[in-house]
């Protein structure tokens, strides 16, 4: 006979001949998980756990957030992700369930940089992000800037942060900094990078910057963050704090920690250089596919009926001869096909080898130096604005938001 227990109930459990008191947490794999008075959790067979009382719910922590009225005002828009995660008391899992206001309680240092107003548009892990949320986010950013925010911070899970950053960069022309930030190591741990990234993001958001950027750790130490252009940034490591890197160009600048000093390079767009404009039209019916040796060309048929497809090809921008025919069939049906490279760094050139020339003949567009996922986001935006093939081709090969600089720097 096992009893129905609620999380937080006092229980007594028996392990061998030892009686232990604790708090019931949850059930897991057929065991009752009990937090002992020593603080340890253990899993105990349900038959050996007895209800011992239901304490009255304690009020949650009610720390007031103080704001300094003399400081500039920033908007924090929360989408979820590790920067705003906490332990789920019931399941013991790290989940994203903080509101943006909770971030201020979690990172009190933010209060010396600016005042904040906060807004939650989603509480999701970033792998669950969608193009329609990008649109909603872009509108929210525009609203906040119109309402007078000196800068906007978007908290975001790191996995797809670069997609969202690119989407905002294509949809919004901004006179103020729009900073995406997240953390690689969970916010519940004392070593989390959330505080430093948050402080650096706020410092960047009140700086002289005037474009959409990603601000994250620059090194394994807590010494500075790098400011990355939204359309040139990529997550290049699964877990390190300094996972994000600018590809094909140096970061736009750095933010020193803990003092928050912002250094901007010559390439960074400055505050006020651009007017506030929003074009949130978007064609979500687009795909991204990575080519590999021996790839079944039939896979490409799945994109039949799509408005557009970005291919991450090999080297200068290639796929196998059998795949070229299928891509030709797609373009023939009106699907825009854009070639990018798995190399990530460097420029597409489909005029060097036969397969490349064949791709061009099949109607595939060269994606320049665009990162594959940036190419996808851009294609969605472009196809949202026009379906005229010549105009689509022109826009896809024009630098709209720093995604394909005309020159490839030698990097020496």
């Amino acid at each position, binding site marked *: 006979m096992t009893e129905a227990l609620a999380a937080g109930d006092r229980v007594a459990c028996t392990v061998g001949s*030892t009686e232990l008191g604790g708090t019931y947490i949850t059930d897991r794999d057929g065991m009752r998980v009990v937090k002992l008075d020593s603080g340890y959790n253990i899993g105990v067979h349900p038959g050996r756990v007895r209800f011992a009382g239901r304490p009255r719910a304690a009020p949650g922590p009610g720390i007031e957030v103080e704001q300094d009225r003399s400081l500039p005002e920033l908007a924090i828009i929360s989408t979820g992700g590790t920067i705003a995660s906490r332990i789920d008391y019931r399941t013991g899992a790290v989940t994203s369930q903080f509101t943006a206001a909770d971030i201020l309680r979690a990172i009190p240092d933010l209060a010396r940089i600016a005042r904040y107003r906060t807004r939650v548009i989603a509480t999701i892990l970033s792998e669950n992000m969608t193009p329609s949320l990008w649109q909603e986010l872009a509108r929210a950013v525009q609203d906040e800037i119109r309402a007078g925010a000196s800068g906007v911070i978007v908290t975001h899970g790191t996995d797809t942060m670069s997609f969202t950053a690119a989407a905002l960069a294509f949809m919004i022309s901004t006179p103020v900094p729009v900073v995406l930030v997240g953390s690689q190591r969970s916010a519940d741990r*004392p070593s*989390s990078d959330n505080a430093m990234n948050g402080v650096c993001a706020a410092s960047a958001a009140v700086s002289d910057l005037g474009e959409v950027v990603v601000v994250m750790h620059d090194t394994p130490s807590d010494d500075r963050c790098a400011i990355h252009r939204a359309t040139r940034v990529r997550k290049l490591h699964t877990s390190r704090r300094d996972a994000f890197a600018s590809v094909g160009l140096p970061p736009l600048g750095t933010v020193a920690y*803990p003092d928050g000093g912002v250094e901007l390079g010559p390439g960074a767009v400055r505050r006020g250089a651009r007017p506030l404009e929003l074009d949130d039209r978007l064609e979500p019916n687009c795909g991204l596919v990575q080519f590999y040796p021996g790839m079944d060309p039939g896979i490409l048929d799945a994109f039949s009926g799509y408005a557009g497809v970005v291919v991450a090809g090999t080297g200068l921008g290639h796929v196998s001869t059998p795949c070229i025919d299928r891509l030709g069939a797609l373009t023939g049906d009106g699907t825009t096909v854009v070639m990018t490279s798995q190399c990530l760094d460097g420029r597409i050139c489909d005029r060097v080898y036969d397969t490349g020339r064949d791709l061009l003949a099949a109607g595939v567009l060269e994606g320049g130096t665009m990162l594959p996922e940036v190419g996808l986001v851009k294609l969605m935006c472009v196809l949202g604005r026009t379906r005229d093939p010549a105009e689509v081709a022109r826009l896809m090969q024009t630098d709209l938001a720093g995604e394909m600089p005309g020159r490839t720097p030698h990097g020496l």
Partner: protein
Amino acid sequence: MDFEKVGLVAGIEIHQQLDTTTKLFCGCPTAVRPVEEHDGEFFRYLRATASELGEIDRAAEEEMKQVRRFRYLAYDTTCLVENDDEPPSPLNEEALEVTLQAAKAFGMTPIEQVHVMRKLVIDGSNTSGFQRTALVAVGGLLPNGGRIDSICLEEEAAQRVEDACFSLDRLGIPLVEITTSPCLRTPDEVRETAAHIGMVLRSTGRVKRGIGTIRQDLNVSIREGARVEIKGVQELDLIAEVVRREVARQMELLEIRAELLAREARVEDEPVDVSGIFAKTASSVLKRAPVVLALCLRGFSGLVGRELQPGRRLGSELSDYAKKCGVGGIFHTDELPAYGVTPAEVDVLRSALGAADRDCVVLVSGTRSKTECAVRQVARRARCALEGVPEETRRMLEGGSSAYMRPLPGAARMYPETDVLPVSITGERWAAVGTPELLTERARRFEREYGLDASVARQLADAERLPLFLKAVGAGVGPSLAARTVLATLKELSRDGVSLDRISDDDVAGVLVAVETGRAGKEAVPALLRAVAEGSRAEEAVAALGPAPGQEELDAIVERVIAERAGFIAERGMAALGPLMGVVMAEAGGAADGRAVSELLRRALKRALE
């Protein structure tokens, strides 16, 4: 001292490193490295975080009074997991197995589903800001009838190199933590219990040896005192002394309390800024400080300077609390005038605070924010003196006294390590866990099986190179020769600077077999092992000794030596045997059988003296 009368209650926590192939949560070896070999470094800040219940642990909060920047040294034997830059791997099964063996040896009951927890530790010794730990079994027994509460498997912390710099080689080495109930009543009982637990752990044969690989934390209280945890006692022989000194400290604190209550002592709420008084002082510490704050402890005069245990006064306790805010320490009027502070300055100070002779004034200097924090800490600790003994975590100082570290941690410092899945200890798994033969049982068996005497058998059973003994005996070497080699010869060689790492068990066994089969004398063993350490194989070293001299050759050497040293023999009589033995062996070469030579020489000497 009558410990029963003072109501001594003690418990012990033993932390023992395990000698596993890899660390607890990553594939790195459990190798401890010289600091000079580090090949990378980085630095981090740590901050206290709210637990799942929304509380900040009081011990963690104490460490947070200072924002600290920690520097970490990395090695080619550490990885991103130690850097807290990669999620942990699953719990090391080898380490769990050793923990279960120890649990079984103590008669404990395993936890059915083991959950790894994060224990907040933000003193910098863990890059993550927490130590991963799991409760594995509960309810064991001690030989004296006391109980073992729990055995936990946890990760070792990083080694502090200096101040805020830590070495990552040690971080993540598996560690078992065994906690007794508060069932110990005398200092000697605490020591014996620690020795017993250490013995059982070593019986598994899978624990690390050497300084720092086992550490004891002691929980001590007396009647009307409070539970105090003293961390980091590394030497077994100091345990009883640490307990005695803690009992003494708590008794002194209780006497101080009685005296304070009799004096109706109290602690002022507000400090007074006395920076002006010390603007031109000869005390360099006070002179260069931006701010000097003074707090009056009414009725405390003479008690702040009172000794609690060797080298420690109530003033030391106040100072420890103040240092948590980053100040260097405190001054108090029980020890002033001194340190460049003049009697006139003390008078001005006392009058500024309205302090009478019965009052004690404490001075704190530093920046505004640090001194304000430090004064609050001093006031907090001084108020504790009115209550008696505060519950604290303390660290052992050289000699056995202790200093304040932080408040005792609460349950709020633990929350689940969600990156590691729980591990089930099924009935079948538990049944399959073998119990190790205890070293005490093994010693008795060695006495019986090998005819060794009790103390040799005991040392051998606990010897790190026991496998060598077993191998040699297995190869036909006599137990006493094998035991002497393991317990004496190798130690002497090591003391003489011979690198034992370069002598394998096979080499030693090879040398001993050569002795046993008459190809080398026992006396040659050290020389042969030296040759092995310098790179020879055992067989080569034995061959290099040359053939053992024949009986005739030996007789001739003995005759000649006796003839050449007739005067010495006449003078010393039979006592000349020892010195002459060395001379004969040197001439006969290392392959000669020492016992045969000794017998030969004894007889010849006897003849010569007749």
